[in-house]
């Protein structure tokens, strides 16, 4: 009982090692991992990573998958999954490209593309809530369904719209401020907005509780189905936005557009540290996760890693990043490290 004062929680908080307090801030641990990775590449590939160009390249290309990963973070926090986003990306890209090409629409084309995303996302939500099919299967099916639909509608066409670079909408969404690609600012904007929604808005709170335990969410008065519908619709909207950004950057639509993002985006969310079990998630982590995923391969190539080794090393970097991320936040959450620590104490 003499120890009482030293056990005051705030005092205990102060006594935590400074490293632990730094890494308790959302995303700090994964940021450290990212910095480490960049640091390594600066040493192994100085020509590339000490210049600014590579970073501008990333900033031009990362926004679409990053925005997708941000949307998927919401879905995962709600304990759901969405695998259909590549097809939504393709669909909205197509709508934007064809409307621009055939009717020279810009903002209207943008609006139409977003609307398509909203509708397709909404349909996902309706299937999940009304037919009760788990979202993983639903969206696996709609990945095929929407993907098939857009190839049928487009006849498998590739649509090039090089003249879009002269439009205001291009400057607004995918232009350059100096060397800085504008779409990077949009990605940051989306991230900030979603951070506030997840952590400070009632919608985000509902999402957290639904993912934590849907039964509890129901019992405390959350309209679970309605919120789920919103989540999938939001994901559709963000997929469409990502699709338009992508089309503006590459000035082309082709029918497999977006498919390459499937694994990348899923990996970004989980490397960022969002729990696969729902109920918690980190927006900052996803942002960094998307950057890490984007940088690994380019970094390895620039470091002179040859062909076959890249794939292997990507796997290794994934594992190391995730472990490091967890260990920096709390070494005891890595069972192996905990066991070692306990052994050493004896």
């Amino acid at each position, binding site marked *: 009982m003499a120890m009482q004062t030293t056990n005051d929680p705030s005092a205990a908080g102060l006594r935590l090692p400074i490293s632990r307090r730094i890494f308790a801030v959302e995303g700090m641990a994964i940021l450290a991992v990212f910095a480490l990775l960049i640091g390594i590449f600066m040493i192994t590939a100085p020509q590339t990573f000490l210049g600014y160009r590579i970073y501008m390249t990333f900033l031009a290309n990362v926004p679409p998958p990053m925005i997708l990963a941000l949307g998927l973070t919401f879905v995962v926090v709600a304990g759901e999954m969405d695998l259909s986003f590549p097809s939504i990306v393709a669909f909205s890209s197509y709508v934007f490209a064809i409307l621009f090409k055939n009717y020279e629409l810009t903002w209207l084309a943008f609006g139409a593309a977003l609307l398509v995303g909203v509708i397709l996302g909404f349909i996902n939500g309706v299937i999940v809530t009304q037919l009760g099919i788990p979202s993983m299967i639903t969206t696996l099916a709609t990945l095929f369904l929407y993907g098939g639909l857009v190839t049928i509608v487009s006849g498998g066409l590739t649509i090039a719209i090089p003249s879009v670079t002269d439009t205001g909408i291009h400057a607004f969404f995918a232009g350059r401020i100096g060397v800085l690609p504008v779409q990077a600012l949009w990605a940051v904007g989306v991230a900030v907005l979603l951070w*506030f929604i997840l952590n*400070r808005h009632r*919608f985000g709170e509902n999402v957290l*509780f639904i993912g934590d335990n849907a039964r509890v969410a129901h*019992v*405390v*008065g959350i309209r679970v189905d309605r919120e789920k519908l919103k989540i999938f619709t939001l994901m559709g909207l963000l997929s469409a936005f990502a699709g338009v950004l992508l089309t503006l950057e590459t000035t082309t639509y082709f029918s497999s557009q977006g498919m390459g993002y499937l694994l990348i985006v899923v990996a970004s969310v989980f490397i960022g540290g969002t729990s696969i079990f729902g*109920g918690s998630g980190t927006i900052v982590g996803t942002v960094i996760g998307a950057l890490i995923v984007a940088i690994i391969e380019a970094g390895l190539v620039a470091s002179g890693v040859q062909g076959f080794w890249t794939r292997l090393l990507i796997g290794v970097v994934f594992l190391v990043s995730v472990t490091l991320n967890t260990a920096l936040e709390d070494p005891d959450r890595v069972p192996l490290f905990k066991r070692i620590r306990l052994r050493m104490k004896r």
Partner: protein
Amino acid sequence: MTMQAGEDSGELVRMENIQKHYGKVESLRNVNLSIGRNEIVGLLGDNGAGKSTLIKVMTGVEAPTAGKLFIKGKEVEAGGHSVRQAQELRIETVYQDKSLGEKQPLWRNFFVGRPITNRLGFIDVKAEKRIAEQIMKSTIGFRSRGISVDSTVGKLSGGERQGVAIGRAMHFDSDLIILDEPTVALAIKEVRRVLDFIQSIKAGGRSCIYIEHTLANVHEVADRLIVLDRGEIALDTQKSAMSLNELTEFLLSLHRVRH
């Protein structure tokens, strides 16, 4: 407490021939029941008698298989009733099953479903934490070291969790407060607090349905006693008509008659 206008019949809840099947299990059978204003109703019955099911139907967690449900004199459509609607009709419930988000902090669990927000729906985190802190300290009085409103609920002890659930019910000022085995897992002093709280409900002119297996507690605070047996109402009487001993005897007799 605000009085409701108009057609208010003095009844808060009325159930007519309510039935609830889970697959082939019949949890409630022809339940007719009404809860009046400013009354404390003790709901008793064996394990599996259907008490919790009755509550869930009343608060919109489950839809009844058949029958009519009236709240404050208005019929609520089966299937159309929801927890949210019940909350809007000022019914507050502490469920027996876990009803806390285990990965969420204490303060969020306190306000979830009805957060303090600005017009855009953004949550006033500071205000929520302050109020949660106040209630946890004053009403439930946790004594553990290291527990704060930021603690994740999953890390609390059994009794502490129950405390959070009850604190929530105490905070939102309602016309009808339903407590499904609220004293479970609580230490002696906290049990006393819950009983005091129920008495304060009465004093405030509000109503309460109180489910509990410890007959002495129920008998102490209830105005009216309802006993469920295998999904049917076996007894509905004013407490004054029955002593604690008679009540105990009645409940035990149910086993003898029908088993």
